[in-house]
C-alpha cells in the first residue's frame, strides 16, 4: 500500500531529474502521489456524470436537434444544466448561499455529517477487514443486526439517561460482532470463504428482521405495520447543535471510532497481528501469530463497527426499526473503505465525501430534477479509477512512475512484460485473500 507514496531512493531520483528536466520530473512525482490520483478520479467521475446529465436532459436534447445550425445553443444550454446540477450538489452538501437565513445556509454541511456517520463507522469496519486481507461484504447484515439490537434495547428497556444510550450502543456493537463473528469463526475453523458467508448472512439478516418486525414481543408497537416502537428519549443520541439541525452525538462516536481504529491498527499488538495475516498469513503463522484467532477477531471487530454504525443511525436519526432500515449502507461502506484506502483518516474523509454526495444529491434532485442515482455512478467511477491508477495516468497523459517515456515503453512492452507496480495499491493487500483461502481449501483434499 505504501508503494505509491514512497519516494524512490534519492540517488536514481536525482539522476532521473537531471536527465528529464524539471517539469517532467514534477509531473512524474505527481503521478505517483495517491492524492492526485484521487482528485483526478473525482474529476473524471464528475465529467462522466455531466455527460449522463446532459444525455438525459430534454432541453439539451432539443438543442442537439439543430446542433449544426446553431452549436452555440447546445453549449450554452449544456453549461447551464451542468452548472445548475453541480452547484445544487455543492449547495446541498456544504454551504447553501441561496438559503433564506444563516441557519439554513449552514444546514447542508450538518446534513452531510449526519449522512456520513453510519458510512464512516461501517466503512471503518470494512477497512479493518481489507487491511487484514479479508473482504467483508456483509456490512449490510451487520448494520441490520446492530440497529436491531440497539433499537430493541432502546425501546424495550427502561434505564436512566446516560446508561440507556450507552447500553443501546453496546447492544449495536454486540449485534454486529455476532453477525461478523459467524463469518469469522467459520473462516477460521473451516476455511469457509468469508465473501460468500457474509453475502448469505446479509440475506438471512434481512429475512430475520422482516420476521422480527411481525412479532409483537419484539416491536412493542401495537400496530400491524412492520415497524417497531420508537426508541425512548433516554436512549437517543443527543443533538449537537440544538433544534433545526439533525446532527447528533453519533458524529463524536464516529470520530472516536476513527481514532480507535487508528490506534488499533497502527499501535496495538492485535492490529499488528491483523496486518500481518493480511500481508502474509504463512509468515504470520511462522512468527507465532494464531492466524485462526486473528482471522475470527478481524471479522468480529469489523462487524462490531458496522453494528455500531447501524446503532448510531437508529438512535440518532431513524428512531424506529423498519424492514429497510439499513438502506444500502453496508454496500456503500465497501466503496467508502476502498476510497479511503482502508486507512482510518482516509475512510473518515471518504465517508464525509459520500455523505455529502448523498445530501447534495437530495437537493439536486429537488431543484434540478436530476435523479439522485447519479451519485451512485459518481461513487462507483471514483472507486474504479482509484483502484486502477495506471488508467488515470493514461487518461491524463501523466508519465508512468518508473519514469520511462511512453514510446519506449510501448516498444519494450511487445518484448517483455509490464512492471509489477501497475498493480492496484488498494487491492494489493486484499489480493491475498482468495489465494490463501484456496490453499487452505486445497489442503483438505
Amino acid at each position, binding site marked *: 500500500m505504501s508503494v505509491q507514496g514512497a519516494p524512490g531512493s534519492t540517488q536514481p531520483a536525482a539522476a532521473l531529474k537531471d536527465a528529464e528536466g524539471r517539469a517532467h520530473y514534477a509531473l512524474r512525482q505527481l503521478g505517483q502521489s495517491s492524492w492526485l490520483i484521487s482528485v483526478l478520479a473525482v474529476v473524471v467521475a464528475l465529467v462522466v456524470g455531466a455527460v449522463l446529465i446532459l444525455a*438525459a436532459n430534454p432541453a439539451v436534447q432539443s438543442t442537439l436537434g439543430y446542433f449544426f445550425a446553431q452549436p452555440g445553443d447546445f453549449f450554452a444550454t449544456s453549461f447551464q444544466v451542468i452548472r445548475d446540477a453541480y452547484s445544487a450538489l455543492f449547495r446541498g452538501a456544504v454551504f447553501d448561499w441561496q438559503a433564506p437565513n444563516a441557519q439554513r445556509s449552514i444546514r447542508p454541511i450538518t446534513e452531510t455529517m449526519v449522512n456520513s456517520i453510519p458510512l464512516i463507522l461501517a466503512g471503518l469496519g470494512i477497512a479493518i477487514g481489507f487491511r487484514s486481507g479479508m473482504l467483508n461484504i456483509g456490512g449490510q447484515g451487520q448494520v441490520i443486526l446492530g440497529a436491531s439490537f440497539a433499537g430493541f434495547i432502546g425501546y424495550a428497556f427502561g434505564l436512566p439517561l446516560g446508561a440507556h444510550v450507552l447500553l443501546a450502543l453496546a447492544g449495536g456493537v454486540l449485534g454486529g460482532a455476532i453477525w461478523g463473528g459467524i463469518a469469522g469463526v467459520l473462516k477460521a475453523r*473451516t*476455511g469457509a470463504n468469508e465473501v*460468500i458467508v457474509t453475502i448469505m448472512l446479509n440475506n438471512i439478516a434481512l429475512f430475520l428482521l422482516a420476521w422480527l418486525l411481525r412479532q409483537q414481543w419484539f416491536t412493542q408497537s401495537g400496530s400491524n405495520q412492520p415497524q417497531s416502537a420508537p426508541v425512548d428519549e433516554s436512549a437517543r443520541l443527543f443533538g449537537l447543535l440544538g433544534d433545526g439541525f439533525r446532527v447528533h452525538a453519533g458524529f463524536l462516536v464516529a470520530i472516536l471510532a476513527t481514532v480507535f481504529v487508528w490506534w488499533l491498527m497502527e499501535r496495538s499488538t492485535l492490529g499488528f497481528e491483523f496486518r500481518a495475516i493480511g500481508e502474509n498469513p504463512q509468515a504470520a503463522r511462522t512468527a507465532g501469530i494464531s492466524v485462526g484467532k486473528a482471522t475470527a477477531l478481524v471479522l468480529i471487530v469489523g462487524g462490531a463497527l458496522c453494528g455500531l454504525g447501524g446503532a448510531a443511525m437508529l438512535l440518532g436519526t431513524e428512531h424506529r426499526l423498519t424492514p429497510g432500515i439499513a438502506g444500502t449502507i453496508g454496500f456503500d461502506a465497501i466503496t467508502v473503505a476502498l476510497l479511503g484506502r482502508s486507512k482510518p483518516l482516509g475512510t473518515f474523509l471518504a465517508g464525509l465525501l459520500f455523505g455529502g454526495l448523498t445530501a447534495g444529491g437530495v437537493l439536486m434532485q429537488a431543484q434540478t430534477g436530476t435523479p439522485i442515482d*447519479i451519485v451512485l455512478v459518481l*461513487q*462507483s467511477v471514483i472507486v474504479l479509477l482509484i483502484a486502477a491508477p495506471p488508467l488515470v495516468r493514461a487518461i491524463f497523459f501523466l508519465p508512468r512512475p518508473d519514469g520511462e517515456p511512453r514510446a519506449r515503453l510501448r516498444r519494450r512492452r511487445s518484448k517483455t512484460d509490464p512492471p509489477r507496480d501497475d498493480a492496484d495499491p488498494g487491492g494489493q493487500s486484499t489480493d491475498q485473500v482468495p489465494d490463501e483461502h484456496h490453499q487452505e481449501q486445497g489442503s483438505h483434499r
Partner: protein
Amino acid sequence: MSAETQTTVEAAPREQAEARLRPIRWKFPITYAILALISLAVFALLAPAESQTQFRLATSTDFFTIPAITVPSAPTAWVLGLALAVLAALALLRAVQRRRLGVWHPIVFGALFVLAFLVWAGAGRGAVIPLVTVLTGALALSVPLIFGAMCGVVGERSGIINIAIEGQLLAGAFLAAVAASLFTSAYVGLIAAPFAGAAVGALLVWFSVKYHVNQIIVGVVLNVLVIGLTSFLYSTVLTQSPEIWNARQQLPALPIPILSQIPIIGPVMFNQTILVYLMYAIVILLQIFVFKSRWGLRMRSVGEHPKAADTVGINVNRTRTINTIFAGSIAGLGGAFFTVGQGLAFGQEMSAGQGFIALAAMILGRWNPVGALCAALLFGFSTSIGNVLSTIGTPVPSEMLLMIPYIITIFAVAGFVGRVRPPAAEGVPYIK
C-alpha cells in the same frame, strides 16, 4: 492402448485398499436421520387428526385430467415419515458398509420430505395446494438464477471471480426492456440483452486482467455502477416517455406439441418461452463443453494452473477475457427474463439481489453446470413454496422458509455438505 490397461490394473487394488481404510462417513446418515425424525415428530405427530390435505395436480390442457387429490393428513404424514426413516436406515447401512448410495437416494429423500412437509402445512386449512403452481413458480424464480450461475461457472472456471452477476442481470433486463420497447418486439430485446451483460463482463475483465485490480472489488463496484446507471436512465429517459422507451413486451409461450400435455411436467417445463428453452440448451451444452471440449479444457486449465497452461501455449489472459465476456452475455440473457421474459416493464433494481444468490447457487453446485442448476432450482423451489404457503397461511413463518437456502449455502461453504473446492487460480491475476 497398453498404457490405459496398465492404469486400470493398477487402479483396482488401490481402490480396494482405499475402501478398507476409508473411515465411515457419518455426516450424511446423521443428517438423514435428523430429517426423518423431524418428519415423524413434527409433521406426523403434530398433524391434526381427522384433517385432510388437498393437492391440485392438473391443468386443463393435459391429456387426461387428474382430479384434485385429497389425503387424510395424519396417516399420510406417518407413511411418508416412516418411508423417510427407512431411507435414513438404508443410508446408515450403506455408510457402515462403506458403500456409496446412488444419486436417486437424496432426490427421493428430498422429494418425500418436502411432500411430508406440505401434507403437514396444508392440513385442515381447507385450501388446495396447487402443486403445478408451486413448480411453475419454482422454475420461473430459478431462471435468472440458473443463467447467472452458468455465467459464474464459465467465469470462475477460467479464473475470474464474478461478483458482478447482479449487475449483468440488471443490465440485461434494462437493455432487453429498452430494445424490445423501441422495436416493439420482445425478440429484439432478447437479442440485445446479452450485449449488456457482455459489456459489464468486459469492464470486469478489463480492470482485473489489464490493471490487476482485485476482482471482487471490481465486481462490487460494477454492481453499484450498473444500479446507478440503470436507475438514473430509468428516472429520466424511461419515465419521460415510457410508451417509447419502456413499453411492456412479452415473449410468447411456445408449448411444445406433445410434451406440454404430460400431466404436471408438461405445463411446468414445456409450456415456456424460448428463453427457458434456451436455458435448457445452455445448461446441457455447458455441461458437455466445459468437461469434454478443447475450449472447456483450456478454460479449466487457465483457472486451475495458469502457468502450466501458458507453458503449453495457451494465452491465459486472452482465454480469460473471451470467456468472461461470453459468460457476461449469458447473464445478460438471463436478465431479459425479468422484463421481456415475464412481460414486465423495467423497474429500478429489479434484479433484487438475485445475482448474489446465483453466485451462491454456483458454489453450492460446485462450479459444475448441472450442480449449479440443481442448486438454483433448490433456491427457486424454496422461495416458491414460501410464497404459496404464505398465501395459504402455515405454521412456519415464510421468512424462515426463505432463509433456508442461504443457511444451506453457509453450511456448504463451511464444508458440512460435501466438500467445496473452487478453481485454484480463481481471483489471482496472471502476471508472467
